[in-house]
């Protein structure tokens, strides 16, 4: 066991993947000499060479499209998209090619790509550097979409994503890059498709993923002071979603709150609310509640605290699920 930041845990995951399989190659902007703008790939080009850790021209469609060609040739490319909002120039290659080639070719061509995307807000950045575009990809057949919240998960899920024969969108919660935790490189933990019950509770199921897992845990601690017992679930995988784990929890608590940074409409929260309503209709004591970013473009840094779900907004959602006084009832109710 070593204590590592989440960013370093990702780097050690990449290092192990490069060592274990010589078909693994890394592609991205500034990932070589610089080690990536977040230093996730620090030292990897020095140790594995320029043919394994490739600084590419500045073009996201080019990065993904080149990775497709390398996959045709038997390689297992890991692409870094520098920031969430920069993925759109590569969107066509991801959605029209990466996601569909295995299906299109009747299984003859595999696309074992991993596309790493630092995502989410909370770092006071400018436009295009704080977005949460995961729903576009979870909506796309042929892709797997995962996100980590701890250094251990960052390390083991990334290695599992790279080893997967399916394409994986790997979303990294950039404001948690500096979170520290113990990492066991040989741990055989949960498979990446499985959700994790972070803390058990009996009154409300609080479902989240990525950067908001830590916030949800804070909310659970704060709610405990009020005598409310929250069960926090870290989804880890957004496609597929481990509905069995969420259903089991909701059947126990009868109440469901979902929180994510991404905008509300058409988001993962809607999918989870719909599916859980379907699966747990007779267990639910209240309608599922979504606490999310608003349906606005990601705002200026000085406004992001009003966009991002925080501890208090999550607790307000918990109150809604419990039928307690909340912002919708009016505070004097």
């Amino acid at each position, binding site marked *: 066991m070593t204590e590592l930041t989440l960013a370093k845990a990702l780097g050690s995951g990449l290092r192990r993947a490069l060592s274990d399989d010589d078909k693994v*190659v890394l592609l991205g902007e500034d990932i070589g000499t610089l080690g990536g703008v977040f230093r996730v790939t620090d030292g990897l080009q020095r140790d594995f060479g320029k043919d394994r850790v490739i600084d590419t021209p500045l073009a996201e469609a080019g990065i993904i499209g*080149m990775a497709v060609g390398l996959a045709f040739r038997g*390689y297992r490319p890991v692409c870094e998209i520098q920031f969430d909002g920069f993925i759109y120039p590569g969107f066509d*290659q991801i959605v029209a090619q990466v996601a569909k080639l*295995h299906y299109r070719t009747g299984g003859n*061509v595999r696309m074992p790509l991993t596309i790493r995307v630092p995502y989410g807000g909370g770092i006071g950045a400018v436009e295009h550097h704080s977005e949460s575009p995961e729903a576009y990809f979870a909506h796309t057949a*042929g892709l797997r979409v995962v996100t980590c919240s701890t250094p251990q998960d960052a390390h083991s899920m990334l290695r599992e994503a790279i080893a997967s024969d399916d394409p994986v969108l790997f979303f990294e919660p950039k404001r948690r890059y500096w979170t520290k935790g113990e990492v066991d490189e040989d741990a055989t933990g949960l498979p990446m498709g499985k959700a994790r019950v972070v803390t058990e509770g009996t009154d409300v199921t609080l479902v989240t993923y990525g950067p908001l897992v830590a916030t949800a845990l804070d909310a659970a601690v704060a709610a405990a002071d009020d005598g409310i017992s929250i069960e926090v679930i870290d989804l880890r995988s957004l496609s597929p979603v481990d509905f069995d784990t969420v259903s089991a929890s909701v059947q126990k608590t009868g109440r469901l709150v979902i929180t994510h940074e991404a905008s509300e409409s058409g988001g993962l929260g809607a999918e989870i609310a719909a599916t859980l309503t379907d699966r747990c209709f007779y267990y639910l004591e209240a309608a599922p509640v979504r606490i999310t970013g608003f349906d606005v473009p990601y705002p200026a840094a000085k406004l992001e605290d009003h966009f991002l779900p925080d501890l208090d907004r999550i607790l307000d959602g918990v109150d809604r699920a419990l039928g307690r006084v909340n912002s919708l009832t009016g505070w004097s109710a």
Partner: protein
Amino acid sequence: MSTTVPVKAPMSGAKKQTPEFVQLLDPDGKRLSDELYDPWVSDVTGDQLASLYEDLIIVRRIDTEATALQRQGELGLWPPLLGQEAAQVGSARTLRPDDFVFSSYRENAVAYCRGVKLPDLVRVWRGTAASGWDPFEIGMATPAVIIGAQTLHATGYAVGCTFDGVDSVSVAYFGDGATSEGDVNEAMVFAASFNAPVIFFCQNNQWAISEPVGLQAQRPIADRAPGFGIPSIRVDGNDVLAVMAATRSALDRARTGGGPTFIEAVTYRRGPHTTSDDPSRYVDPVVAKEWEAKDPIARVEAFLRSEGVLTDELAASIQARADEVAAEFRAGCLALKNPEPLSVFDNVYATEHSGLARQRSQYTAYLEGFDK
């Protein structure tokens, strides 16, 4: 020798293209000499040229048969290649089995040269499968329908070849319309930066559905590549011999560490974009007539006859062979079976996806309800 661009200039200020290009067989079948490119085909014998002639006849015959199948309701759609036979055959016949092709959807003659099984050409167009063949069996990816996307795949594949230390080459086929796409331009940047052994083979057939090449390019398309650091060749795409020479020179450069080459094969799409298209709305019949006179097959036939290689007897036997292929192609097409309903769920993922598995089992139960 000059080619003609569509007379209807799309916008004011569009410059007329007055290209020079490599030509070894002129439209009358006269063999021209070219100091630079003659050596690349100096080994091509009359018999070999006759074999290329047979290819040209057969791929045109397949194309005609496919259009007939579409008109008879057996195919949903077909993209005819009439006029582009030499560009495709001349390039594809120079490749080795270990080279790899990434094409668009009109490269049916390329697929034929790569050894595709005939019915595989129409699985997509008959709607029985999402693509026609196993790419690794014939060294050719199934066509990309998103215009230009495959040029990046070819570049990545080529970079992989250099990593593997082999001298295989990848070839990206695309059209004049694709050169406006970002992907194609990014592919050229990447190919140049990584010195990738890739050939960008652009069939400038003058049309992107109804849009003339003048809307995509104000200069000859081949002029763009040097700006990316990629040498380019402009070749008469209706001259099978010249196309072969140009492709061989590009292959040689790629195999010996010289990196990418851009080939613009100047040709003309004499048919519709697809069987759903109506070119009478946008094609000037006078220009179309001019291109008929530059037919890629007629000139080879004239040359072979002047050389005494092609006799009436041989021509008749080649035509008979083409008719046999067409009959086999038609029979294979009609024998294609409709896919099983539940195969709609197959191969979305290489390993099971629990969400999709649930949909599959629910739809299975739904379908079973009809049997009760």
